[in-house]
């Protein structure tokens, strides 16, 4: 079952990647990256179990952390970007 889960995760990752490639809006991409990130967290956990070394789950934790922080960072970028675009459009 674990292996089936890993395959399912890979499939989901492919789908999320397709969404990230297609866009069309910035937010779609961010969403896709976010989904991709959480799936990576799961995939890493699953890989740990498949390879029989569950003690490496720390890495999944780091992924979750990094994923969250980078999504927040991206959104912050967007606020700046949006602000400057708004300014740019007005003059």
């Amino acid at each position, binding site marked *: 079952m674990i292996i089936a889960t890993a395959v399912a995760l890979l499939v989901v990752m492919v789908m999320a990647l397709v969404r990230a490639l297609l866009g069309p809006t910035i937010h779609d991409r961010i969403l896709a990256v976010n989904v991709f990130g959480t799936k990576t967290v799961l995939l890493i956990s699953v890989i740990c179990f498949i*390879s*029989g*070394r569950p*003690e*490496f789950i720390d890495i999944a934790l780091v992924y979750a952390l990094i994923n969250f922080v980078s999504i927040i960072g991206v959104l912050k970028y967007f606020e700046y970007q949006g602000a400057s675009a708004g300014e740019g459009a007005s003059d």
Partner: protein
Amino acid sequence: MLLSALYNYWVVVLLMMTGLYMVIAQGNLIKKIIGLNVFQTSVFIFYISVGKVTGGSAPILSQLATVYSNPLPHVLILTAIVVGIATTALALALVLRIRQSYGSVEEQDILTRDSQC
């Protein structure tokens, strides 16, 4: 396993070529840096593939495993990743300064503006 063997290295080669292409052909400086990153990461993938031993576990000794992957490439790549991020940070800082003083991050603009004065 043979298919996988060739596949691994060939994909690495294709990745390297993609990265290198970006660095040479793209005029946008940020894109160049992304290309450098792709290029470097593909080299990391190459090293890690070299270190792989079939059936080998991560090189952290434990009772659960007897065969381990080769730890040396991992060490080298840890160092190389750090070097990579250091280069990226410096390059991006340069890009910001270039943008400030040239008003553009496109290679063509910079070259024309340099030749004007």
